[in-house]
């Protein structure tokens, strides 16, 4: 799939060509799912989801284990198809381009849609600096002020002050929370416009979790963020709207406050009040 020539990338027309502002690049894009289905072999993991993630908002996806929420976000940057036997059907629009269109290069999708995983996964052979630079080097970006970009990314991830004196040390020498922020810095370095977070705090202690949550609040101004979480308090704290999934289907998508106080679906109410799941 990666062999396809990058004929038309989803990097369509610049948003405001006349503005001449560097900052306009750093705006989130909207992501729209239309009748999305995802399968692992015969298992139907996501069943016909319609959902919109507005730009520069944090959307949380909650639901019990195995409800398809991770699979759903992995369809957005087409990581789902990396699993042997997995496939997806339906439409995922990045602004107005379908990322599953035949002439879209999967590599260009992933550059625009970054992802942070459940377990911190810095590259073990690389230093802190190289981990952040890895995204740029891996995508073949040459020249530019690498140092500058690494510093900016580390600052955006709230890690710069802690690691500025040990940029040359191995990335896996950091604590779990720092490693996860390092992974966020690595994602930010390639300048995505959408960031997917797949339970980014489930391997972290409460203090590290809090730091990541503060970070998410800060990143919201520049990125569209989708966060999968097991932790309903976390969804309530960080998100603007929340989607509740059950057995591969979307049950409800409402503004976060409404979903947790006056959900309109009985199953949502049962879940958020702890009656099951």
């Amino acid at each position: 799939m990666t062999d396809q020539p990058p004929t038309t990338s989803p990097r369509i027309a610049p948003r405001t060509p006349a503005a001449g502002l560097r900052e306009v690049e750093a705006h989130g894009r909207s992501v729209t799912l239309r009748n999305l289905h995802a399968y692992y072999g015969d298992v139907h993991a996501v069943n016909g989801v319609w959902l919109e993630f507005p730009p520069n908002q944090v959307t949380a996806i909650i639901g019990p284990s195995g409800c398809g929420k991770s699979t759903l976000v992995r369809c957005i940057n087409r990581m789902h198809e990396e699993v042997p036997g997995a496939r997806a059907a339906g439409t995922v629009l990045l602004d107005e381009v379908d990322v599953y269109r035949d002439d879209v290069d999967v590599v260009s999708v992933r550059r625009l849609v970054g992802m942070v995983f459940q377990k911190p996964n810095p590259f073990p052979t690389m230093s802190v600096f190289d981990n952040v630079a890895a995204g740029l080097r891996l995508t073949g970006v040459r020249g530019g002020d690498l140092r500058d970009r690494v510093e900016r990314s580390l600052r955006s991830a709230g890690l710069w002050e802690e690691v500025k004196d040990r940029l040359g040390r191995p990335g896996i020498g950091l604590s779990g929370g720092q490693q996860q922020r390092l992974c966020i810095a690595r994602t930010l370095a390639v300048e995505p416009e959408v960031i997917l977070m797949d339970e980014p705090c489930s391997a972290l202690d409460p203090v590290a979790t809090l730091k990541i949550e503060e970070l998410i609040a800060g990143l919201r101004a520049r990125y569209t963020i989708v966060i999968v979480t097991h932790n309903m308090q976390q969804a309530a704290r960080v998100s603007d709207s929340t989607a509740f999934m059950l057995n591969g289907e979307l049950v409800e998508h409402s503004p976060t406050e409404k979903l947790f106080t006056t959900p309109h679906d009985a199953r949502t109410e049962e879940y958020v009040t702890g009656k099951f799941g």
Partner: protein
Amino acid sequence: MSALAPVSPRRRRTDLLARGLLAVGTLLALVPLVLVLYYVAKKGLGTWSWSFFTTDPTGNFLGSPGGIKSAILGTIEIVALATAIAVPLGIGVALYLVEYGRESRFAAVVRYFVDVMTGVPSIVFGLFIYITLILSGGVGGFAGWKGSLALALLMLPIVTRSAEVVLTLVPDSLREAALALGAPRWRVVGRIVLPTALPGLVTGSLLAIARAAGETAPLLFTSTLALATTLNLGTQMNSLPAVIFADVGQAQDRLVRVAWGAALTLVLMILVLTTLARLISRRSRFA
């Protein structure tokens, strides 16, 4: 719940017996190993001298039999060429199997043949090269590079198998992280998978080299024997296993002693390689 009780005498006896049997078994297994090393060292050390390593065999029926310089250099040259062929090829096959072929039918067939090749006796590889490259007459007679080819065939499945295991050990989370950054697959392999697996790949290759360096059969009818040192892999070449094979059967005690000296040299060379392999694998990042 039952009360706390001391270990029964019967269990104590059984435990003692089982431990004793295991210890005896281990000692028995060590006996031949130690004896081999002791014998080679005892017989070989006596022949070692400066000139033993710096002169070529004379081939004279009388007088000094000379040293084994040409055999040491010949082994190094032949094995180096074999390594240059087998290691990149083997790692390439393993990369295909792990990164691209995965569960496909073709990959399963390749895996099966690699396994079969592991079990092929080394003399068969020598015979194969002898028939295809020497008897056919197309590319001349005996030559060092043909020995290298035979050894490369022998090394290929070993390198492939060990590399496949090591590459499978690279966590998928690293591949996913790199792919999610928007890296094309070949860059993920080159920048993440290979560097992470490097210590293991080196270890596996060194063990394959050690194995090939000691093989006699594939060399007997490919590079055969020679007296003089040569750097030309296109001619017949001397090698340590071939010297041992040829000299140990001689009636003259002087030549048999050369064989022992060469054997000790070979054992030490291989020992260095395996020690190196152990040291490197200890530095592996996911042991």
